[in-house]
């Protein structure tokens, strides 16, 4: 066995279409999405809704609608392109944007993935705090506050990175193994929390929800007030980078059929509905027992409800989410340096995520960070969508960088920069909150890309064959 084989245990088809023999069935995606979205970060997000002063009707109605819109985004935007092109997002962008622009995009994407994975490591490390009793960060802490905390994050991050480095199939297997158990434990969090909040029958649920758990009113100090529309857009856009932003092209390129995008519903309605509600319930219980204790620490909250199994759930849930995130970041960085070993790149990515995880500010401001993350990567999703479906029909050249030999497609680059500029200006001027700005931003990006392509593209003497749109 040579060095390359030792460090590349799985051929991941980074720069070629996934061949039919490597396509996967629906079950793999159900397991991955259920595992990935029933995650340690759900134990951060659920409590932050309460901190944002959301009411029961706004939360439950907003989650039902927002998650539905997210599933539709995977089914109709991401999966159809993924199962036709069967390329990673990064390789597809290289064909559209050119190698220099895509390096910039991959850098931004990889950094955002690293920070997000860091938040997941943060969550899992709070579980170790219950066992080892070191001081843990508070809701408003920005920096690591003890050596114990740093060591806990280091231990978790190292473990996560090693698993991520062994590739998609191992990752999918682990997620499949843990997902059913995690789902049940999250359900147990909610059931136990409801009983401890005084609910004695299912018929009491709505009254308990409105008067004890999600009471509405003013948010906690330093938090934004959340309404129905905040919840809807947050639920829809919290994974914007992977559905509308197209990062999950890298996942669904393995799918036999485009409709496997529906597997995302497993993640949305179990993870981003049931798990968020359960986590909210645990936080409501904590606040009821001690109104001054506003810190969001998933480990202790889970331990108080389910003991050792709850703690294990926090670690495993963080692990199954951090794994694909570190893996995707590794793909992003590898696209910058294609000859590098994915194994080594993923390990390095994991190290950066671990460093980020030591700073609790990222996890404590997760709602805002997730919205920012979607906004930054969304314009390139619009570029991929328009390039794949519309440009040829409009008499323009898809995959223009590859066909023209350009290393920087200015139409795509300017679309990205101008859209980000418009969105940032809208947020900074106070016209639109960051949770909403990505919707108009997508349309701005789509229109800009068509107009700029019309201006920038030159007729090609000998156009190369374009992608097939056949199913």
């Amino acid at each position: 066995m040579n060095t390359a084989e030792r460090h590349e245990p799985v051929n991941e088809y980074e720069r070629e279409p996934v061949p039919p023999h490597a396509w996967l069935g629906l079950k793999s995606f159900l397991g991955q999405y259920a595992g990935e979205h029933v995650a340690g970060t759900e134990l951060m997000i659920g409590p932050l809704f309460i901190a944002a002063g959301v009411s029961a009707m706004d939360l439950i109605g907003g989650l039902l609608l927002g998650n539905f819109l997210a599933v539709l985004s995977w089914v109709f935007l991401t999966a159809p392109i993924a199962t036709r092109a069967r390329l990673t997002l990064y390789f597809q962008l290289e064909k559209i944007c050119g190698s220099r622009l895509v390096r910039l995009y991959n850098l931004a994407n990889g950094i955002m993935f690293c920070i997000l994975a860091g938040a997941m490591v943060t969550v899992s490390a709070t579980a170790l705090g219950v066992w080892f009793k070191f001081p843990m960060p508070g809701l408003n802490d920005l920096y690591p506050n003890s050596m114990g905390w740093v060591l806990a994050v280091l231990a978790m991050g190292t473990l996560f990175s090693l698993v991520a480095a062994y590739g998609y199939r191992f990752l999918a297997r682990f997620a499949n193994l843990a997902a059913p158990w995690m789902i049940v434990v999250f359900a147990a969090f909610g059931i136990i929390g409801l009983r401890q909040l005084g609910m004695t029958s299912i018929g009491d649920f709505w009254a308990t929800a409105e008067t004890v758990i999600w009471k509405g009113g003013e948010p906690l100090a330093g938090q934004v007030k959340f309404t129905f529309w905040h919840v809807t857009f947050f639920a829809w856009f919290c994974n914007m980078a992977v559905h509308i932003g197209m990062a999950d092209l890298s996942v669904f390129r393995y799918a036999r059929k485009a409709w496997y995008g529906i597997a995302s519903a497993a993640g949305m309605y179990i993870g981003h509905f049931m798990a968020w509600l359960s986590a909210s319930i645990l936080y409501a219980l904590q606040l009821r027992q001690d109104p001054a204790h506003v810190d969001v620490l998933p480990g202790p909250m889970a331990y108080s409800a389910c003991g050792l199994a709850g703690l294990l759930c926090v670690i495993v849930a963080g692990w199954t989410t951090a794994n694909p995130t570190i893996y995707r970041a590794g793909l992003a960085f590898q696209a910058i340096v294609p000859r590098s070993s994915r194994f080594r790149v993923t390990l390095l990515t994991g190290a950066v995520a671990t460093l980020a995880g030591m700073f609790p500010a990222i996890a404590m401001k997760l709602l805002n960070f997730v919205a920012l993350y979607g906004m930054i990567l969304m314009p390139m999703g619009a570029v991929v969508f328009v390039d794949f479906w519309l440009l040829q029909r409009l008499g323009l050249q898809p995959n223009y960088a590859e066909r023209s030999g350009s290393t920087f497609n200015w139409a795509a680059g300017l679309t990205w920069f101008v859209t980000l500029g418009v969105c940032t200006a809208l947020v900074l001027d106070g016209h639109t909150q960051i949770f909403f700005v990505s919707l108009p931003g997508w349309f701005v990006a789509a229109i800009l890309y068509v107009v700029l392509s019309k201006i920038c593209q030159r007729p090609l003497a000998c156009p190369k064959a374009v992608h097939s749109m056949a199913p």
Partner: protein
Amino acid sequence: MKHVAQLISGLALAGTLLPSLLFFADRITLPQVQFWMVIATIAWFASSSLWMERPAGK
């Protein structure tokens, strides 16, 4: 062997959820819930690793 492992896995999942339902119905205490959830968790990971995602014939 595979069917036995699958049966144990099913029972382990039920055993992970059931204690919380019994607690909700005031039939057992919280420490009892936590004890049985750990036992069920061990049973789940031990049994599910024997059959989930295994290639046919292995």
